[in-house]
């Protein structure tokens, strides 16, 4: 009988230990597991980021900044123009070297709107001979897995001025070698450009 009791004590102690361990494990797991524990950005955070990005683009368009940026051309070499004041040199494959845009406020708005650690690219997507072309304006790297994309569409017409400072009063329709082609030569519509803001 005494042996049985010893065995029962042992069993009880073992079960109690397992119980305690399980409780501790459970408590730890409850703390560790969150919606973002796998590295994904929370759906609400993504939606909020997307809304902020959309608002930033809409505000920029309201102030004429998107159109001004899209029309900053160098009509002599078919690329976007260098901007000595803030954006720097335009390089075909990587956009502006200063990671800024040749128009005030937009870059500041973006930097102010998003928390530090959020990086972004700005791309222009437009039709070219019925195909889609993409030009990088700001290229801060390749997006990670958690990408949020917002876009705003801007319509260009032939009579709008090229905004590059080295070209006075030249219109889009009169630009010798434009970086964005005139997709509708028989119409006053020039092209329709999607400004794409990619955040991660």
């Amino acid at each position, binding site marked *: 009988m005494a042996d049985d009791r010893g065995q029962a004590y042992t069993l009880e102690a073992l079960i109690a230990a397992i119980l305690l361990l399980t409780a501790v494990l459970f408590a730890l797991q409850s703390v560790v597991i969150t919606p973002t524990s796998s590295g994904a950005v929370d759906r609400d955070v993504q*939606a909020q980021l997307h809304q902020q990005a959309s608002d930033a683009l809409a505000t920029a368009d309201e102030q004429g900044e998107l159109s001004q940026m899209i029309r900053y051309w160098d009509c002599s070499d078919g690329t976007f123009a260098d901007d000595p004041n803030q954006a720097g040199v335009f390089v075909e494959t990587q956009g502006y070297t200063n990671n800024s845009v040749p128009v005030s406020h937009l870059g500041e708005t973006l930097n102010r709107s998003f928390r530090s650690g959020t990086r972004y690219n700005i791309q222009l997507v437009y039709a070219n001979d019925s195909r889609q072309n993409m030009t990088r304006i700001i290229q801060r790297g390749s997006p990670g897995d958690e990408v949020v994309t917002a876009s705003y569409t801007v319509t260009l017409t032939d009579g709008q001025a090229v905004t590059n400072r080295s070209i006075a009063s030249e219109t889009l329709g009169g630009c010798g070698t434009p970086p964005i082609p005139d997709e509708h030569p028989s119409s006053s519509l020039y092209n329709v450009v999607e400004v794409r803001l990619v955040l991660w």
Partner: protein
Amino acid sequence: MVSDDRGQLILVGAVTIALIILGLVLVINTALFTQVVGSEGTTENVKEGGLSVGQIGDGIGTVVAEENRVGYPTRSAIETEVQNEIDAAVEGALRNRTVEGSGAFIEIRSFSRDEPGTRVYQSSSGPFESGGPWTMFSTSPPVFHDIGGLFVTVDEPAGGTLDLELSNATTSESLTISTGGGTVDLSRGGPGCQGIPATDGTVRIDVSNGRAYENSTCTFSLFEEIDGPYNLEFSGSAEGTYTVATDAPSVAVASSTDPIIWSFEYEYLYDGPEVTVESDGHEVDVYD
């Protein structure tokens, strides 16, 4: 002794049941969290490639502004031309953009001019309205209207200043543009608006949006500082050209005027993957 053993067995049994329940809770809990994390998806994007209603209206508005700038003898002629542009190019271009972005289909179902307006401009470089002072509308009795699309190109070599005074019934705000010495200074805006270098002898100033094209860091506010409706006065000896639009059917005697469409109405169909919208008429001010 037998009762002691039974008590111990009951205790062990209870602990075992508690352990089983705890284990089950743990398993179910883990499964639930796994499901949530899994549905987040590490590669899930929140992407919206479609056009909003505003962007469709903006697109048509840009074309209307272009036809206003071209200049036609009647507003009816502008309306016809814009309709032709919508049919020939605008609708297709916006539709392609939308389909590429989100798979949605759009159709601009109707376009009609709404409020009439007048475009006032000086296309030949010279003193602005002969050196002024020139006001867009009568000051006695005072008349005020909406004004937009004010764009000024100043000739730097000619020198002199141009004073633009924007007023409403109670207050006024002004912008002074000073030329000479190879550069142009604006009385508003930050350091970027001082010493703006001229390009081919000119500096282009988008007054409505508060920007000078010749320096991308120059921004200023004039229209934001005062509520409409407005009157606008030009004075000073500087030379150049300008264009401005108003919702008034006519203005005081000026260099040149053209009838324009100030606002329009349009209806559209938006057929997206998740939603189909048949809109009522949307009114858009071209120069807002």
